[in-house]
């Protein structure tokens, strides 16, 4: 019984990847979109690990997943005025 574990792992990760990226583009709340973006970036890094390229995986996490979503959330905070004015105005779009 030869189970291709790598293929199964790849399918699971792809499912995560696609669900996460769909959630990024359809999400109404920007912070959640950034969170899902971080998740897709980490997942894609794990897919790189399946291709036996550890260095790309680590750089992906260090640079991409570590910095880009933080920058995104930073920008979101800087450009959302509603939370400053009256509490509770969670901005839809």
């Amino acid at each position, binding site marked *: 019984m030869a189970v291709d574990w790598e293929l199964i792992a790849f399918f699971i990760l792809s499912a995560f990847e696609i669900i996460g990226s769909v959630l990024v583009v359809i999400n109404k709340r920007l*912070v959640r979109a950034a*969170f899902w973006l971080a998740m897709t970036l980490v997942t894609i890094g794990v897919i790189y690990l399946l291709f036996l390229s550890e*260095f790309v995986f*680590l750089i992906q996490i*260090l640079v991409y*997943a570590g910095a880009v979503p*933080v920058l995104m*959330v930073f920008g979101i*905070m800087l450009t959302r005025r509603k939370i400053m004015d009256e*509490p509770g105005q969670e901005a839809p779009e």
Partner: protein
Amino acid sequence: MSAPLIPNLFAVCKVLVAAIIGIVQSIIYALSGPIPPLRGLGDWLGLDAVITVVTYLIVVTIVVLWVTVLNLFTVMWVERKLYSRLQDRYGIMISIWSLPFWPFNRVHRPTHKGLGYLQNLADGVKLIQKENITPRNADSAMFHISPVLIASSTLMVFAVLPWSSGFYVANLDLGILFILAAFSLAPLGILIAGYAANNKYTLVGGFRAAAMLLSYSIPMVLAVIALVVFTGTLDPVKIVQQQDRPLVAFGTTLPLPAWYVFGPQFLGFLIFSVAMIAEMERVPFDIPEAEAELVEGWTTEYSGMRFGIVFAFKWLRMLAACALISILYLGGWSGPVFTTLSVGGIPVPIVPEEIWFLLRIYFLAAFFVVLSWSVPRVRIDQILNIGWKRLIPYSLLAILVAAGFRVLG
């Protein structure tokens, strides 16, 4: 050249697990006479993949317990006792004698007279009892997820952090890079926590955390690059092995170990330590949770055990940072060996590598504690100035120096 107490954690555990599974398997085979389908279960248990997975689970559990229960409590205890000494007071004093369920409690025994090691446990129990409050207009899912993000990214560090040459979960070739990558994931959690709590203090705290951690992870990585130029490897075990020899300089053998501190990497050591203080959010650089102006910074709205997790993982990051500094620059777990006992044919070192490593970690932790309790907090613009204008040029200089020494030999 001391030896580790555990030669190889994974191998030891695998032998144990295989033995236990063998016993279970024989029981199942014995039962499979009356119930034939159990034979398949027994065969499945005997698979190498199953044994490996179970071993990994057990190894991870052992390391997590070792880190959180033992070392976390100890480092918290060290800090609280030490700064109490610095401030002329007793500090934490709850001992086992003062626990209410302790059966041998005498009536007039003073309850607050003890070492205080159990105080952290008592605080944890207290925090668990408290209510978890979610602010009404908070983005509740993000608010709940960010402690998990912080905790998981911190625990990822310990997946590859070796505690001796044999005591680790996994040893990667790129272990140091993995640790740095795991460190760099926490700012996202902090930022999300600051945004989701719907509070101005947490928002400003999140801003500060993001600005500070981004600016300090760059010199941190650059300092490590300087070291890598010098060592040629990112494997923590190999880095420690390189330092485990006497220092040879100017053609003579000095009575010093060949730690990377003693040499051209001293600048990198300083930069890395400063950046690590910022990563740990300790007092000179703890502006994200400056309790004087922002009430608790980005942790303001957390309560109960969620606050406890966020708070405890600060110490865990400190532990990881001290271990990292020790591995990279202070010779890791290398230490002199006095003698080894032989217990049933297995050599057991009297002072094993783990002890040397823990000693170094706690010494560093004590140093950071004394430092952080004797200076005030730095302002946000000053901290960014230090990061961008001082540390980054110096770390580039460190890379240059390392490359020069490498070229010239």
